[in-house]
């Protein structure tokens, strides 16, 4: 046995360099699947619990390792990407060049559809990226199958359409029209008229909660449960009219951008916003969320795009001199910003947590086109652009998730699978209370509010350290006469005393002293007054 294990160790030691590289790579991947750090076993006092937790941790580690290996070796597709050689920059490569390089199937995804009369167009993709719904301002609503580029249904509602959004699958979609929002079926029939919410400006669907969130023209936020039609919540935002609304896919929190420059975040169970973030001095024109939920991009009318870290609510990056009418994050974290007839795509070039978003690709459309909405197509390297003259689709290599999961979103879904999925969606429908800023809190313990008192030993040790630090401070040389050694030692002593004074141990001493004084006083009292003294 012993020999064997030694052999193993030797074997590990002489791993060829490329295998070592693979090991490092796998370890980096494992981190993602571990979903946070392990439990600190040292702090557990209960032995039984410790063994239990230890075995669970081992199990988690194993499963993370397996998942990392699967990701490394078994996933069918590798992601897209754009590599340049030499001094060539990625943002100099235009769509024409790309379409020449890629395969025929992909090059078909680059097109412009010109519909000059009914624009500007809003668009939305279904969760699997298979279907797209388009809503023209002048009442043109169209449902398309993006895989075989087929028009499924188009209708003309003959009134203003402000926004369109898919509901839980491609069978239903909602449109915000002049007076009310409507729900339409796949065949274009009107299923519902949502009168309660008034003239809706923006519509967003929360997939896990099956809630339709909307903000109307007078700045009211509504949440409606689409499984039974109940209005879950309606709030007055109190910040005026807005048409900037986005859902954080990570936690289901709805963000609204206001004309005062603030971004507010809402959940259906609280009347007041969870967060009010002052992002811009002027009006906020667009908000977008990274799919991992930690990054938010906002753009203001003062020609700035800002990227925020939502864990610390701090600014990570500002991009100056660029006004974005619409922003969109892709599944792999690329950020697209559109204004006028110009689209810029930024990518996180650092790859780690520093979020160095820099230029990745540019795309200029025909002069005069006004971009209305950008949206990356899920599971594809495609950016959909809705503009005043129809809609376009361009190729952005490396934007989409290359491997879909059949149980999450399947672009090749059959009708039977879709029906089964619908049932599962209903079973897994989350109650509105699960919308919170940190969704991992569910099932976790609330940390105790009370601060633990430091023990005496700890206080002593801290005190020692502070005194040592005070002693080791080098005093500056003063002007002549003030630099006497006696003064210097006095000063040093003072500093040490100050360091000592900051610790609560002194209070304890004081209390003891006080009592002693009382006791002594009792001894000094005249006999007639002694009976009033505190008894021992």
């Amino acid at each position, binding site marked *: 046995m012993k020999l064997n294990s030694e052999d193993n160790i030797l074997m590990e030691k002489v791993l060829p360099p490329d295998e070592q590289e693979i090991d490092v790579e796998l370890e980096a991947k494992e981190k*993602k*699947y571990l979903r946070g750090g392990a439990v600190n076993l040292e702090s557990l006092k209960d032995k039984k619990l410790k063994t239990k937790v230890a075995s669970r941790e081992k199990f988690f580690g194993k499963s993370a390792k397996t*998942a990392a290996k*699967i*990701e490394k070796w078994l996933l*069918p*597709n*590798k*992601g*897209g*990407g*754009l*590599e*340049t*050689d030499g001094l*060539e920059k990625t943002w100099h*490569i235009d769509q024409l*060049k*790309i379409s020449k390089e*890629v*395969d025929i*199937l*992909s090059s078909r995804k680059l097109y412009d559809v010109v519909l000059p009369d009914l624009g500007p167009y809003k668009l939305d993709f279904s969760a699997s990226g298979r279907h797209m719904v388009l809503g023209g301002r002048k009442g043109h609503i169209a449902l398309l199958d993006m*895989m075989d580029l087929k028009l499924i249904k188009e209708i003309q509602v003959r009134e203003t359409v402000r926004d369109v959004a898919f509901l839980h699958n491609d069978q239903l979609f909602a449109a915000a029209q002049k007076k009310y929002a409507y729900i339409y079926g796949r065949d274009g029939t009107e299923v519902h008229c949502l009168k309660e919410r008034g003239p809706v400006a923006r519509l967003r669907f929360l997939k*896990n909660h099956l809630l339709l969130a909307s903000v109307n023209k007078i700045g009211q936020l509504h949440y409606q449960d689409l499984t039974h039609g109940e209005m879950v919540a309606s709030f007055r935002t109190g910040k005026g009219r807005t048409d900037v609304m986005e859902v954080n*896919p*990570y*936690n*289901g929190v709805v963000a609204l951008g206001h004309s005062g420059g603030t971004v507010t975040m809402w959940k259906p169970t609280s009347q007041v916003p969870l967060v009010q973030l002052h992002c811009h001095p002027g009006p906020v024109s667009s908000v977008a969320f990274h*799919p*991992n939920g930690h990054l938010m991009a906002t753009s203001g009318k003062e020609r700035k795009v800002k990227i925020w870290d939502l864990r610390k609510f701090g600014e990570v990056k500002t991009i100056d001199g660029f006004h974005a009418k619409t922003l969109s994050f892709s*599944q792999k974290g690329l950020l697209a910003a559109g204004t006028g007839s110009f689209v810029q795509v930024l990518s996180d070039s650092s790859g780690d947590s520093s979020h160095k978003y820099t230029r990745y690709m540019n795309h200029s459309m025909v002069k005069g086109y006004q971009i209305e909405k950008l949206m990356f197509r899920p*599971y*594809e*390297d495609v950016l959909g652009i809705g503009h005043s003259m129809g809609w376009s689709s361009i190729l952005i*290599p490396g934007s*989409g*998730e*290359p*491997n*879909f*999961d*059949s*149980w*999450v*979103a*399947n*672009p*090749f879904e*059959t009708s039977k*699978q879709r029906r089964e999925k619908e049932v599962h969606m209903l*079973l*897994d429908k*989350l*109650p509105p209370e*699960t919308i919170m800023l940190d*969704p*991992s809190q*569910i*099932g976790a313990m609330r940390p105790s509010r009370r601060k633990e008192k430091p023990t005496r030993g700890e206080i002593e040790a801290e005190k020692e350290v502070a005194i040592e630090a005070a002693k080791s401070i080098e005093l500056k040389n003063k002007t002549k006469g003030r630099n006497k050694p006696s003064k210097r030692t006095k000063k040093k002593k003072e500093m040490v005393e100050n360091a000592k004074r900051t610790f609560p141990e002194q209070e304890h001493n004081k209390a003891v002293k006080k009592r002693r004084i009382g006791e002594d006083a009792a001894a000094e009292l005249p006999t007639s007054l002694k009976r009033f003294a505190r008894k021992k």
Partner: protein
Amino acid sequence: MKVKVISRSVDEFTRERSQDLQRVFHNFDPSLRPMEKAVEYKRALNAAKLDKIHAKPFMHAMDGHRDGISCMAKNPNYLKDIFSGSMDGDIRLWDLATRRTVCEFPGHQGAVRGLTVSTDGNVLVSCGTDCTVRLWNVPRPSLQDFNISSENSIEPSAVYVWKNAFWGVDHQYGGELFATAGAQLDIWNHNRSQPVQSLQWGTDSVISVRFNPGEPDLLATSASDRSITIYDLRMSSAAKKIIMMTKTNSIAWNPMEPMNLTAANEDGSCYSFDGRKLDEAKCVHKDHVSAVMDIDYSPTGREFITGSYDRSVRIFPYNGGHSREIYHTKRMQRVFCVKYSCDATYVISGSDDTNVRLWKSKASEQLGVLLPREQRKHEYDESVKNRYKHLPEVKRIVRHKHVPKPIFKAIGIIRAKNDSKRRKDARRKAHSAPGTVITVPLRKRRIIKEVE
């Protein structure tokens, strides 16, 4: 310049022929599944609710005896067999698959008090209040006479008459001996008409006897002097004895940890002991509101079943203080005997209302052959339920059990009594000098003394 974009041809991702299975792709990336904890919690909640909806444990009431069932025995060699003896002297062999009587064993004049089957499954030993021990050859059902009529009766292969009435019998594991409980403990051999050995400690009669599954010469008895005694047949004298505050009605050894035994007590609790250290119970299993009449361990050793005078059957985890499940019906009267089936899937109870009842051991378990997909679903549900069992809503649903009104009321009374006693004790302790009032833990409280 190198460009690569995602491109999926439909042929690669869909099936070729209509007979093929649909292709399924996985990507375990956590960012594709937002709010996975909330979803898991919801699934745990659903699983707990579904469990309660599907909880239909009662399978069948096997009717045939003319008087209350007093004892049962399972055939260790034959999964479907269960023997039951009644108060009128009737013994029946039931087939659990068809839920019918296979044959009858008439002969006892008074109540049958004990039944046991030898380890090879060929000999049935019965004893009763008519002072006789009867040995029967167990009929082997062949494929031809599968549909045998229920009125098949069998003659005993031996009848041994002895001096006193019997209260119980148990067969040695893998040996030739069996022990009867009566005025004293008698050890018998199959071929001898008189006991080979008689053991007694004190003058009180022995109520129940159980051989140890691991050590064939070790046996535990309980007697009407409220004692639990462990005998070693090789020493021809008792090894250990404790006296408790109330009588123990039945004993069961844990088949997987054969040093541990659990005693079904008259006070409504069961006490798990380490056989080597009887002065303190390892665990007290409380929940019954009346005397526990019989106890039997699951072959897995992780659970045991108890039948009680309060007309209910409960299933306890071997190391848990409270029951996992309570089974009751409107028609079931006081339960005198219970058995866990040899595959741990069913439990059988015999009660005063002349019926032998068959229950599932897991109330909501899906029986029959499961598809691998179903199996996986059940496993997943079980694990998420386990993961979120501490959350209040899941806990409430899992813990909820409907109990009959009399038991519910009795539980309330017992709880009020215990609470007031606890309060009183706490006050007494608080107002006494420190150290004068010693709280004895519940595990020791009901044990009076240990006798060597």
